[in-house]
């Protein structure tokens, strides 16, 4: 017994030291799988009490109450639990940045401001220790976005349980990202900003004019790219032109990172002239022009739910209420988190805040599942618990939108039961053992 104890102890220690090396991607799901006795939050607003999900070969086959479960089938009993679609983080640097302050571990931002040909997916590190901590909270897919100062490159949608980025990708190069110039004067505060004397340095150039000029150049680039892509067999290949080809056919989404009304209104040019399928990211002021956004079929990723109000005059709760304003106007929107990687795991709580300030809980859920999938262009594949879609869902013992009840017990990606262990749980185990805080595992 003592020998066994030592052995297991050694394994436990080894596991902890190695971080998460033992957390393996799950193998493909074959045959039938059932979830039963579940309160199923479909993701599209409906809730099925005491429901059953039938999965076959990684796909959802049936969802409902009257589904027959063969005696031999693999069944997960979700009695008293909530089942949700796998949560989707619509904008993230997950897998691109490991530790913020360590330069060598940062792959999110390339040099230059015209990088349409840069592809985030190729730097996506499936072995990042951060990924598993998100998965533990029910986030099963994410949009991996290259950061930048202007046209930063293409993002890809990945599922979070894979051996490598090839396997992870749900939709490669699904979006092109533009970071809008600020179009607002920002005096040079210098390092240390709020020093006595305060902000007083005037801006030298007119940021609106400067920004609009940059955007005009970008539009010229798109015009040329469109013309270039209309013919084949160029003697001289232009990688940048080629990289934006799918924008014109709407195969690729056009994400514009913008917050102010002025930025968003300027961005409408891209819809009007090029017919791009546009998503505004950030959109902290979107509540002011929700109707206009709807009118132009622009969708939105709200990134600053847990943010301070933009101005001192704004309502103290304004960021919390923005989602409800978009919902009311009928804008297709998703909720994200402004943090580049680690705090993406708080995604459900961002949605929970929106639910506390005007959304219904099911609407808030849609904002981190189905809406996200739709605006990312993977709505036919995932985002809700509906037949034909990938079997991506999670089981929680309580309301996932509320941190005091959120407790993800199971997660399935393409029907595969995902290992919910992560580095942090392992460190927790390690020290619970050190302090003898709980019965050691396996004894």
């Amino acid at each position, binding site marked *: 017994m003592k020998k066994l104890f030592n052995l297991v102890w050694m394994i436990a220690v080894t596991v902890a030291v190695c971080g998460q090396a033992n957390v393996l991607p799950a193998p493909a799901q074959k045959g039938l799988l059932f979830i039963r006795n579940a309160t199923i939050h479909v993701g599209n607003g409906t809730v099925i009490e005491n429901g059953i999900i039938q999965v076959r070969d990684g796909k959802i086959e049936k969802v409902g109450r009257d589904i027959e479960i063969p005696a031999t089938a693999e069944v997960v009993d979700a009695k008293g639990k909530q089942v949700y679609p796998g949560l989707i983080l619509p904008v993230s640097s997950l897998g691109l940045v490991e530790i913020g302050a360590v330069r060598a571990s940062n792959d999110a931002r390339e040099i230059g401001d015209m990088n349409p040909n840069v592809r985030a997916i190729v730097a996506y590190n499936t072995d990042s220790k951060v990924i598993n901590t998100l998965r533990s909270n029910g986030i099963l897919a994410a949009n991996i976005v290259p950061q930048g100062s202007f046209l930063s490159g293409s993002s890809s949608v990945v599922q979070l349980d894979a051996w490598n980025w090839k396997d992870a990708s749900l939709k490669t190069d699904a979006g092109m990202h533009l970071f809008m110039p600020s179009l607002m004067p*920002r005096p040079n505060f210098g390092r240390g900003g*709020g*020093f006595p004397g305060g902000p007083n340095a005037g801006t030298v150039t007119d940021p609106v004019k400067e920004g609009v000029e940059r955007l005009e150049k970008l539009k010229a680039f798109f015009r040329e790219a469109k013309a270039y892509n209309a013919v084949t067999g160029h003697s001289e290949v232009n990688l940048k032109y080629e990289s934006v080809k799918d924008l014109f056919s709407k195969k690729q989404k056009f994400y514009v990172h913008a917050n102010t009304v002025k930025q968003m209104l300027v961005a409408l040019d891209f819809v009007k002239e090029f017919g791009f399928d546009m998503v505004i990211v950030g959109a902290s002021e979107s509540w002011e022009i929700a109707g206009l956004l709807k009118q132009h079929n622009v969708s939105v990723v709200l990134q600053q739910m847990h943010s301070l109000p*933009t101005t001192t005059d704004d309502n103290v709760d304004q960021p919390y209420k923005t989602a409800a304003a978009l919902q009311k106007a009928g804008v297709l929107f998703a909720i994200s988190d402004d943090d580049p990687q680690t705090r993406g795991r708080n995604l459900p709580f961002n949605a929970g805040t929106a639910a506390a300030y005007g959304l219904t809980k099911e609407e808030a859920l849609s904002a981190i599942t189905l809406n996200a999938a739709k605006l990312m262009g993977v709505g036919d594949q995932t985002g809700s618990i509906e037949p034909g879609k990938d079997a991506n869902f999670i089981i929680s013992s309580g309301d996932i939108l509320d941190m005091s009840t959120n407790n993800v017990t199971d997660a399935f990606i393409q029907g595969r039961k995902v290992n919910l262990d992560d580095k*942090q749980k392992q460190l927790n185990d390690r020290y619970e053992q050190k302090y003898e805080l709980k019965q050691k595992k396996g004894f």
Partner: protein
Amino acid sequence: MRKLKRLAGVLICLLAAAASFAQPTFPENGTADPRHGHYAFTHATLVKDATTTLSNATLVIKDGRIVAAGAGLAVPQGAVEVDCSGKFIYPSFIDIYTDYGTPQRQQQTGPFNFFAPQQLETAVKGPYGWNQALKSDADVYKVFSVNEAAAKSMREAGFGTVLTHVKDGVARGTGAVVTLANEKENLVIVKEKASAHYSFSKGSSTQTYPSSMMGYIALLRQTYLDAAWYKTRPYQEGFNATLQSWNDNQGLPQVFESNDKWNDLRADRIGDEFGVQYIIKAGQNEYQRIKEMKATNATFILPLNFPQPQDVEDPNDAKFVSLQDMKHWELAPANAAAFEKAGIPFCLTTSDLRSTGLFWSGLRKALEYGLSETRAMEALTRIPAQTLGIYDKVGSLDAGKLANFLITSGPIFNEKTSILYNYVQGIKYNVKDGNDIAGTYQLTINTPDGTENYTLDVKSTSSLTMWGKDTLNSKFNFDGKQVKLSFAALSKRQRPLVADTAQRRPGGFGGRVGMTEQTLPANATRLGGISNGKEWNGTGVDSMGHRLTWTALLVKEAETKSDSVKKKEAPVTGKVSYPFLPYGWDEEHQPKQETLLIKNATVWTSEKEGVLQSTDVLVRNGKIAAIGKNLNAPDARVIDGTGKHLSPGIIDEHSHIAAASINEGAQSVTSEVRIGDNLNPDDINIYRQLSGGVTTSHILHGSANVIGGQTQLIKLRWGANDTDLKFAGADGFIKFALGENVKRSASTQGNNRYPDTRMGVEQVLTDAFTRAKDYKKEWDDYTTARDQLIKAKKPLTGLNPPRRDLELDALVEILDRKRFITCHSYVQSEITGLIEVADKMGFKVNTFTHILEGYKVADKMLKHGSNASTFSDWWAYKMEVEDAIPYNAAIMHKVGLNVAINSDDAEMARRLNQEAAKTIKYGGLSQEEALDLVTINPAKMLHVDNKVGSIKVGKDADLVLWSDNPLSIYAKSLYTIVDGTIYFDRQRDEQLQQEVMAERMRLVRKMNGEKKSGMPVLPAQPTYEILHSCSDHGHSHGLLVVEAEE
């Protein structure tokens, strides 16, 4: 009017005669020419001072001084009489905040840079003090030189005397009183050392310290102590010119430039501590805290530069211009009036104006906004003179004083009045002399073909209309003596010349403004000549090249415009609110303590009683008076708590809001600085956090150095001033920090400051406490020796106290268990290292804050007796938090530590209840345990659990009524109560939102009105908010936020 013309002529002739004095010690190159400038100005309205006006009076001057002033005086023999009928004579103005005649200032250095190398020592060579920003040895008179261009513009504004000093540094040395006469420096200096100057600005100093408001205050306090100690001639110090002159200057009036309402108070408190009453050079915003200004007992120096309106026509631009900026634009001109109303003495200055020429427009604005003319006059004459103790020399028209006076065309503040002459030390300087040439003149030109007659309608020195048979195109200029006129027939396309629109003002600045450029053909007739009073004579050349002579005779003086200018109604303005931010309280709606009865709520006590269902809580006199069922209090305001949850107010152990600066990062040990010295009640985050249920915040120094500054516990009393924000009676704390920030790992430009490793960090700590112990012993030895001498009734001569060191004082307080540490720390090695230093040196680490690897050494922390204050789930933002886990709080709690969850972030602080709730998910704490992490636990670690942190009879009534279970994400604070005062009320907040919108609308309209009326407007300036944090974790705070350590 005719008399005036004559007077003008006479005076012009006398200009050369009123010559300079001779200096006896200076050899004369030529023959002696002694003069006395003996004049009698008769028949004048003599305004001797702001409250004494004599009609038909005489002013006699001689040798640059006033000999006599009064009514019915005879013109002394030997004096030249100048008839001043219709004229007014005033003492000329005094500006005691100038840098007149000083060398060009050097470039200001930039603010503190978290990432750049530091200059740790002074770069100035010589026997001076340690800090480059202390320039107390600077005496302006040694570098002063007369600057006629600057003097002229000041004289034209009405000034005759100024106090000048070099505006550079924290201590700036002495100022000198000088007149604005264009004479040799020896003669214009009235008092060579008239004042000593200080500021919160390093100026040209390149030394890194001080790099924060706290640092400025600490540097000044320490220097007062050092200077006192230096009087004992300590041999260790050698000769220190900085301290020497600091001491020498103490007898002078002490002037502090603080430029902002809170800085005024900060300066005044330094003065109070060292028995100095500063004269305060203010900013524009003191009206926002006028009661506090009054309490300083200071005399203020007020600038007259006011914010310009902004272009807010585009709503998308206007949106980012904050309400407080627009309100300030509206109210700033009433600053002086507010001082007058409050009975606070003040002077006015031309300082801070973009140009001296704007003085009168600023002054008129101040008058329009309620400043009385009498007080304005006093603020420009008597008060500044008395403030500097030179009222015996200047400031009124009394015999014996300098002959510094103004002759004006009427009452000086009258819109139509011009200053005609400004006499400085009896020397006449023309201001608007000869400008009163307006009138109709008959011009006769003698050509070879006979005479031609024209009529000139002269409007000003640069504008006239001329016609013969037809109106002619003309160009005119009169410089006081010479006349130039050219003209030609008007071409068909040209319209008649319109009189220029420049407004006349005392000081005569607008002369050329608005003048339309007239193009004359090359063959225009050109005339040039001289004014001999009402007759002008000259020669000229016509278009054909013929020589001409001409004469112009005044036939009709311009009609004097009647002085029917009505006193403008004081503009209607909004109200001052407290704080001066949206959602503030106005004067009539101040927050007040109430007797409150919260009925039938679920009460989370954070006491052993746990959660009480359907319970009432009575609040009286700011305390919790009773807890129970069916409580009754007829006098109480009843709040129905049915279905709602009452919790103790949330306590944030680690916050950086409401402070002007948080990092004095210029040295590795800065225990001398104090957050409490620089609180900023004008922080919207106080209100925002109240909306999230926060009632007490521990405002910490940043993490730029190993031993940071002293912290300040505050209560979120929205609207209170910087003193009343403080949590009274709480123990003092100090911030320490370890790891990446203090070794400046983020430094992209190289770190040159010790330490650069965790090894060095440990040595900095060891060294600091070793020094503190030696210091303590030195003082103990001294007091013992002193007490023995006293006991033995022996004289104390020869026994000098050691140098007081504010840095070591704070460390000794730690050793004496009078001050407590909260230490920013992450990894287990450094935590264990600090515990070892503490054990060895005999102090305790009260709190480890952040402490994300606390779970690894929880047992050691417990043994040492520490508390732990941590984040819920942030990690991986830098190397030292790679092993941070969200289970940290729960493990430490289970091990037995007292654990809190903190924010270190203005945004997250609004959701601290939710951050605490994460420990239910990560680590399985109970709901009560989770809530304790942000209520009673932080209260304990801050030593205030006897006052706050739980719902218990007798404790402060700091309470939050939630709409839901406080650990739920769906819970909103309905009421946040501090000391029995409701500071946040969700319903009132909705009403305030409406009021903010309405007030914004009003101000936007008003600004747009200014634009439409043709006032120059600035482009809309977004109002940025400054936010501080430990520079640890990136977190977007929105568009308009400047991260102070970014």
